[in-house]
Every structure is written in structure tokens, then in C-alpha cells.
């Protein structure tokens, strides 16, 4: 994430179908979209934007596997090497009793690991400045944003006419 100030030109749409058509048209016209904001997940937006599938779940699997090994290994070490105690006449290394805890630590590791990874990738640590282009994009507006830093007037006009053609209800600029 670069922290430099950006001049953003953005258009607001009233409907997700109109937004999807606009995104497809922008791709066809080779306009470089900075980001798209929607109040809810829009089906078909990811392929329209050409986004790759997230690899977060692979990280999650790895964290989960670490959790499994850690939990099982730790209990094995404690109950066979470090502090063997007989519980209810069971053997020291009583695998069935370890399974629930192993399962829980697997879930815990993968959940916390994925959350931390996700926040790190998105740069969302505490105290981060997170400006919104328009508050209504969390409510009922669908937004396409272009970065107009260092663009000439004709390029900006081209973007504005694009918004007009594709049926944006509002076009604004904001420096974030």
C-alpha cells in the first residue's frame, strides 16, 4: 500500500447490474480501475474485474496443520515425557482424549492465523487511517473509483464521459 495522497475520481451507481455492466465496459475500454466499492458482495464482480482467487485459504490450511501438530505433539510430550499422570485407568498416551483438543487448536490456529494474515495484507493495523470516498457506499450506492493522479484533462474528461455513458447517478472527486 502506498501512503501518498491520491486524487480519486469516482462515480456512484444505484444498481449492481448497472455497476457490473460499467465494470465490463471499463475493462473493454482499457480504463484502469483503482477499486470498486459495494455495500454487499456482488455476484460476478470478481471475474469481471479480473481478480485472482484468494490464496488465504491455503494459508489457513497451513495454520491449521501447524495447530494440529502443535496440539498433538504438545500433549504427547506432556503426558508421556514431562508429567505422566494416569487418568481413569487410561494409558499415558491416550489418543482419543487428545482428539477434541487437537481439533479445537486446529480451528483456533487457522482462524487466528487467517485473521492476522488478512489484516496484515490489507494494512489494517490499529490506528490506521481509512478514508471512505462516500459514506453511502456502505449503504445503498455502488462505486467505481479511478486514480487520476498526474492525468491530463483529456484523460479525466474521458473518464467522466465514461461515467455518463454507463449511467452513474453522481460523479465526484476526492483527495485521499
Amino acid at each position, binding site marked *: 500500500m502506498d501512503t501518498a495522497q491520491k486524487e480519486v475520481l469516482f462515480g456512484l451507481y444505484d444498481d449492481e447490474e448497472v455497476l457490473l455492466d460499467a465494470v465490463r465496459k471499463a475493462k473493454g475500454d482499457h480504463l484502469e480501475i483503482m477499486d470498486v466499492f459495494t455495500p454487499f458482495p456482488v*455476484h*460476478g464482480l470478481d471475474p469481471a474485474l479480473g481478480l485472482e*482467487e484468494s490464496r488465504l485459504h491455503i494459508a489457513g*490450511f497451513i495454520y491449521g496443520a501447524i495447530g494440529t501438530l502443535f496440539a498433538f505433539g504438545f500433549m504427547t510430550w506432556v503426558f508421556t515425557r514431562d508429567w505422566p499422570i494416569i487418568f*481413569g*485407568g487410561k494409558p499415558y498416551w491416550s489418543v*482419543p*482424549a487428545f*482428539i*477434541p483438543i487437537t481439533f479445537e487448536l486446529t480451528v483456533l490456529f487457522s482462524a487466528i492465523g487467517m485473521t492476522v494474515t488478512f489484516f496484515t495484507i490489507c494494512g489494517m493495523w490499529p490506528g490506521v487511517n481509512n478514508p471512505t470516498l462516500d459514506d453511502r457506499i456502505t449503504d445503498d450506492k455502488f462505486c467505481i473509483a479511478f486514480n487520476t493522479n498526474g492525468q491530463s484533462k483529456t484523460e479525466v474528461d474521458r473518464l467522466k464521459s465514461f461515467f455518463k455513458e454507463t449511467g452513474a447517478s453522481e460523479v465526484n472527486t476526492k483527495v485521499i
Partner: protein
Amino acid sequence: MGLGILCLLLTFFLDSQPLHVRFWTNFLQNTVFFTGIAFITLFIYAAFITSWAGWYTQFKRVMEAMTMFLVPGLVLLLVVIAGLWLGWHELYHWASAEEVAKDQVLLGKSGFLNKGWYTLGTLVIVGIWIFFAMRLRSLSLAEDQNGGVDFAHHRKMRIFAAAFLPVAGFSSAAIIWQWTMSIDAHWYSTLYAWYTGASWFIAANATLILLLIYLKSKGYYQGVNEEHLQDLGKYLFAISIFWTYLWFSQYMLIWYANIGEETTYFQTRMHDYPVLFYGNLVMNFILPFFILMRNDTKRKYGTLVFVCVLVILGHWVDFFQMIKPGALDTAIHAAGAHGGETISGAGGHGDHGAFHMGFTIPGLLDLGAMLGFAALFIFVVFSRLEKVALEPTNDPYMAESVHHHV
């Protein structure tokens, strides 16, 4: 297609006649397995209707056709019941009066485990299931003919479906105790009904996927695409984990409490039937879990078909290991009581760990019997399916199903 294998089945029946234990356990196992698939399909269907789901609407005729196996299922169960009354088989320990008389535990259970309740329970409960299956199917078909904008048929279906859910929950638990849990008459587990229910659920789900892929390959159901299959695959994945959860819960509680009358169930299976016991876990949890974990394996036909065949076989093996050990034990006792006749096999005296075809591992005859029952199942489904339009026309959720996107 079905008839060829059906003839094969008849040969197998004649062939396995001398080992009447093997014949009857196979018969019971496959009857319960496939009737259960039909029942749980009805349950899934009712749950979908009640939850106002729309994505499955395109192929709901296949599910309706699958529930129609309940009728031949009842006929097959009547054969088991006839055998029970006429003494054709020694499946159930509690069925012999002299055994019960000298057994305090069985005497205590005889209020529920007796021939009368078995017969009545099967007739009434499967009868109720058939009633709901018929009702939902006829309402759904009538909607095609004269469904209007007020969706009266759909509202009515919703009432029947919602009424069926609690009925299904309690009745299936009661009847599975009779059908299979009572084979180990001394043993009991309160998780058993859930466990078998989950087993049926996966088998039914996998059967549905296979039928859909087959029908698609024949050019029907072109609107059913990988989005629908991915959702069905997710069910397969989720319920496989649920099944494992129940399997482990049942195992761990018994292991932990360490009460003799309960642990004997698992002791027998772990020591005398190791292939079944561990194979069951590998087939039904480890392989589907790792194969179906990825997104694309649920969307590609190859992997999905492989997993479906695997888990159908896996849960068939699951029922195999639920039924065989107890029934064999009962048969050995019965043979001992009658004198003369001896039955060999694992669970026999000092025969630990030996492989015995048809008991500790499924042999070709058992697989043949399974194929025969499967063929009958498919025959019933397709003969029900060919009578109706494959895709519903007046269902309010049809459009949603066509545009389904995960």
C-alpha cells in the same frame, strides 16, 4: 441396465443360500441402506422446502423419484419381517423366546424389542414416510399442470414438508434401533440414530450427484452446472465431517466410560474386524476430507464422481460393519443351541484377526448383492422419472435455480 444385474443378484442369492447368515445379513444391510437413502432424500427435500431454498429446484424431480424407493423398500422389509415370524433367519438375538427368557437384559428390553413392535413400527413408520413422499410428489407434479400465481401448491407443500421434519427425526431414530441397533441386542448407543442418519445422508447425497452427472451426460439437465454441483459437493464435504464427529463422539464416550457392556461393541470391531473398522474411517473421512477440501474438486466431474463412488461404498461398508459382527455372533449362538451345524468366521472361537470373506471384509458376493440392490434402486428411480417432465414448470423458485451462482 438394471435387469441384467438383477439376474446376477438372483444367482448370488442361490449361491449364498448355504451360508444363510451371509444371505440374510446382506439382505438386511442393503434393504436398510437403500431404504434409508430414499428416506433421507425425502428428509433433505423437506428441509429444502421448509428453508425456502431455491437452488435445487431444477433437479427436484430426481429427488422426488429417489424417495419413491420407499415403496419397494417396504416390500423388502416385509420379507425380513416374514422371516422374523416364520423363523427363516437368526438375525436378531431378541427374536428367540428361549434366549430372552434366560437373559435378564433382553427380558428388560422385550417391551420394545419384540416381533410385534418390529412389525408394527416398520409398517406404520415407513407407511408415514411413504404418505409424505407421495403427497409432496403429487403436489409438486400438480403444480406443473395447474399452478397459479397464488402458489397454493407451494404453500401446501411447505406445510407438509415442515410437518414431516419432526416426524422424520423421531421415527427414523425409533426404527433404526429396531432394524440394526438391536442386532447387538445387549448394546445400545443414543448417538446411533444420528450416526446412521448421517451415513444415509452422505450416501443419498452422493447418489444424487451421480444421477445428475449421468443424466447430464445423456443430455438432460443442461441448466444444472458446476455451481449446483459445488453446492452438492459442499454438502458431501460437510456431512462427511459431521459423520466423523458422530463416529468419534460415539467411540470416545464409550472408550472414556469404559463400561463392559458398551465397549464390547468396539472391542469386537477393532480386534476381529480391523479392515472394516479402520477402512471405514479412511473411506468416509480421511479421503473425502482431503479430496473435497479444495474448491475445484467439487466443480470437476472426475474428482466428484470418484468421491461419490468412494463414499457410497464407504457408507455401505459402514452399515456392513454395523450389522455383520452382531448377526454372526447371534448365529453362532443359535447354531450352538441347535447343535450340529457350525458356522466359522471371525468372532468365532479363537479366530481373531482372520479374514473371513463376507464378514470381516466384503467379498464379491456381497458386492454383487449390493450392485443388485443398487440396480433395483436405479431402476425404480428412472422408471418414476421417465413418467414426468424432468424440469418443473410452475415452481416459483425455478428462475432462481437457473441463475444459481455460488
